[in-house]
């Protein structure tokens, strides 16, 4: 059965027809073309599909699409602003925190949510916030360093690239 729903993604409103048994992730990727959020395990184990729903980190692969109706969805495509990449994106680049990049959209979203709540997260707070995002490449250390760099840049009102020598 096709249902007509209205979905707000990264500030844009979409009126779309979706099969009623679609998840938010399937709708984002296969109806709307937002392919940033990744379909990894597709059953809640890995975190690569993490998006924000009203600012709350949410696994879109196990969220029935109807539950996103009437809420604000933010995907990794919505992180960058008009002035360029989000501080986290810049910091991930500088720190080498993305290797194959498959986990990165979910990690960025979870980290962005953390930085909205906490200006100076401790290493332990970062680990906890990212404990649902599995990465097979980096060993996590570079991810944690990148989040710390982005947090410092935000505190100092500068860009991560201005804080490190390349």
């Amino acid at each position, binding site marked *: 059965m096709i249902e007509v729903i209205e979905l707000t993604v990264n500030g844009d409103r979409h009126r779309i027809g979706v099969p009623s048994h679609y998840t938010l992730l399937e709708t984002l990727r296969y109806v709307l073309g937002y392919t940033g959020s990744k379909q990894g395990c597709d059953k809640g184990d890995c975190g690569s599909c993490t998006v924000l729903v009203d600012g709350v*980190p949410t696994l879109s692969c196990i969220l029935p699409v109807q539950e996103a109706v009437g809420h604000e969805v933010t995907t990794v495509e919505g992180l960058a602003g008009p002035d360029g990449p989000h501080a986290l994106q810049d910091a991930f680049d500088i720190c080498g925190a993305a290797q194959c990049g498959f986990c990165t959209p979910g990690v960025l979203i979870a980290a962005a949510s953390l930085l909205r709540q906490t200006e100076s997260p401790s290493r332990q707070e970062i680990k906890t916030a990212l404990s649902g995002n599995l990465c097979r490449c980096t060993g996590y250390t570079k991810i944690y360093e990148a989040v710390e760099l982005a947090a410092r840049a935000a505190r100092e009102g500068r860009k991560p690239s201005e804080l490190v020598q390349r």
Partner: protein
Amino acid sequence: MLRLHPYRYHRPRELAGALELLKVHAGNVMPIAGGTDLMPNMKHRLFTPGHLVSLKGVEGLYGIEERDGEIWIGACESLTSVASAPLVKRYYPSLAFAASTIANPMIRNQGTIGGNLCLDTRCTYYNQTHFWRQALGFCLKRDGDVCHVVKGGTRCVAAHSADTPPVLITLGASADLASTEGTRTIGVEEFFTADGVWNTARKPHEVVTRVRLPKPPAGLRTSYQKLRERKSVDFPILSVALAVAMADTDTVASISLVVSGLGAKPRTIGQLDDIAAGRQLDAGIIEAVAEQAYRQCHPLANIIVDSDWRRAMVRVYVRRAFRDIQSKSEAAA
């Protein structure tokens, strides 16, 4: 990619509407709250209802508040809220802690306490894709007629794997259930049955509306210990919930100990008051309680972990629960 089967998704605003939908579509409908258990299970074709009734939009299923000398937690409160609510942290720290260990931060945002109470049992031979299960010839919990854990067995022994119920039992909690036929209240301990196929007393058309906790007696000391492979994401493969009521600073009044993650029903360890009531909480008592728990627990190979080791860990985790209680009361002193 794990496709879902076609279904219709209902989002009632009122509890009455939800209960009506569950009655009208009886046999072909399930309630869904956070969906963090049901969605993966449906992707594995363990459930294929034609209708889902979402409880998330039902206003009456929220709220964490003090009522009639009890604390009430609405069934749709998220695990994140339960873990962080000041009332829960103040009166029931072991419950807040147990909720904080569930799955990962995103799942705690989505998953609910009602869903945690109703979590389906788990088994290595069950939580798999349809293709995987078909290759093995299915099992009697779903689609088949044999058990791969107990060869020749006629009873499913899949594991109760939710983190909050063992703690709720030690705290004397109960659950309110509602259906079109009316409401009833049942102790969380009596809510669970030893049948791995459907391990709760909840009828399919009933909805858990809230969890109710009595105010704890003064000086109740509690702990929750969870064994799992990784410190995040994973379900418990053994869990120990402990509540010790004290007669005075040193003397035990009674001990409530629940061990779970092993079989279909959380196991309340019996005969503890014979060992401990009226005595000082010393190493001898702790060892005797740990031994009693060990004797009463018999894990089976419903997960691919050595069963003898899992059983040996019962003693270790009971000791840890006591050590936790002791170190907390030392810190408070």
